């Protein structure tokens, strides 16, 4: 009885939080919602008497994957742009795809003849370990190789610094835009009526050759504004 109620509650929470994850407009909310979904899944595992898997689920998924994803969201956003509006461009396509798959799966599940109660006692953690390191040790080792390769690959992909052009373009563009803004503000100020007369011809404006960058390599305002 308690199991049934618990399962119903967990199922409702699970589907609800999953819907929140895919519907949230803010990416950080979405990722945190994923954390909640995965924690509830861990509770479901505990209900299915898979304590070890539940623990690993929390440790690996909630503590690792979600944390990593949050980190990913943070480093791919600038500080003020953390609120990522994720658009639902193809609502119809999504509904058709998701709904269709659900109908297909549900029909086939309901058609099948499945056991309604466990056929034996739940497998213990020890049996899990002997299974993992006995018949499946090759897969286990292959998996560790996969993890190693994935980590090395991730580092290689993320650490490559020689993209050169686009990144420098960004920096140069940002600098030029800033300079243009400043020059614009200066000009507006010079044109506005101020207590003192505006700059007259008495002072020689900097000539073009004087305005070239010399020691500091900064972009001269004249070039940036053009």
């Amino acid at each position, binding site marked *: 009885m308690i199991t049934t109620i618990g399962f119903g509650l967990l199922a409702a929470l699970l589907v609800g939080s999953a819907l929140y994850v895919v519907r949230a407009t803010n990416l*950080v909310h979405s990722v*945190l919602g994923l*954390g909640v979904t995965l*924690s509830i899944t*861990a509770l479901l595992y505990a209900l299915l008497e898979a*304590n*070890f898997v*539940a*623990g*690993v689920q*929390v*440790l690996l998924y*909630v*503590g*690792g994957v*979600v*944390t*990593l994803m*949050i*980190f990913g969201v*943070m480093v791919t956003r600038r*500080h003020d742009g*953390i609120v990522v509006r994720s658009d639902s461009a193809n609502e119809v396509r999504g509904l058709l795809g998701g709904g269709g798959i659900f109908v297909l799966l549900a029909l086939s599940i309901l058609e099948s003849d499945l056991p309604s109660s466990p056929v034996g006692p739940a497998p213990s*953690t020890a049996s899990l370990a002997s299974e993992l390191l006995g018949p499946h040790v090759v897969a286990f080792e292959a998996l560790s190789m996969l993890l190693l390769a994935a980590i090395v690959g991730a580092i290689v992909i993320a650490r490559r610094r020689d993209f050169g052009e686009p990144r420098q373009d960004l920096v140069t563009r940002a600098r030029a835009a800033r300079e243009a803004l400043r020059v614009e503000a200066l000009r507006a100020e010079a044109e506005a009526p101020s207590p003192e007369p505006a700059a007259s011809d008495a002072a020689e404006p900097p000539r073009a050759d004087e305005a070239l960058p010399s020691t500091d390599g900064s972009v001269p305002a004249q070039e940036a504004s053009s």
Partner: protein
Amino acid sequence: MSALLRGFVYGLLVVNAVLLTSAVNIWFERKFSARMQSRVGPTRVGPLGLLQPFADVAKLMSKEDTVPASGNRVLFTAAPLLATVCALAAAAVVPFTPDVVAADLDVGVLWVLAVGSITTIAIFMAGWASNNKFALLGGMRSIAQAVSYEVPLVLSAMVPVVLSGTMSLSGIVTWQSEHLWIAAWPLIPGLPAFVIFFLAMTAEANRIPFDIPEAESELVAGVTTEYSGMKFALFYVGEYAHTLVGSAIASALFLGGWSGPMAATMPWLGLVYMVVKTLFLFFMITWVRWSLVRFRSDQLLAICWKWLVPISVGLVLVAALWVELVPGVH
């Protein structure tokens, strides 16, 4: 049903004891730091200023509760709760005596580590929901630190698991009561694993010298920058509770927990042993905190990945070899 009731009662006891001890520990730390700096520390409230944490809490209760207008109200409120609850949830599996344990899980070590890893998310939530650049920087640092130190923490906790052949904390303590403390007997995987676990646990609890997420000289108050009133008090007490529970787990994993002379016949003596060991570890953390300076961010990660992780991998291997080669371990 009786197990549920028993767990409830023990849980209530443990939570209250941990919170009360955390409060007293705050007082202790203030007096201790004062001694380290030729000061006196709180003197005016209660004998020896013993009631100082309670005065602080009374004050924080009466403070206005502010939420940043552009922050995220739900996450901002949930973060301190989650942080404190995670710290206390880990206490559920700590065996204080052979009988006093709120929930004797067969995967107790896994539970502790899993719950501890959620604290990071709570801290990040606090930093992000504050919508404050210092808080956010603190949150990012916290994630970088926690993801790194999770690895040596888990690996060094595996040493007692491998040696005793169980993931239940009380099982590990029982094994130690039959053999010796893990930090002492298989000295080679035991003692270094204890040291690494201790360091990583200090890092997970964001204590000096690993407190870059709330480096006061750089980040105002880190993730707690926007927190006031009781929410800040929760963080404040939660940090101490985290440290305290971490000390308790370290002493159960490596220092034999409740085991000791005569503990088998007199269970209350086991409780005394456990409490003394836990408080000793807490004292060590405090001592380190007021003696050392903070690591830089890059030094912190370098220590973890270049030293602690390789060493702890080796320690797990040595522990496995020990189980394989030395008779009578299991």
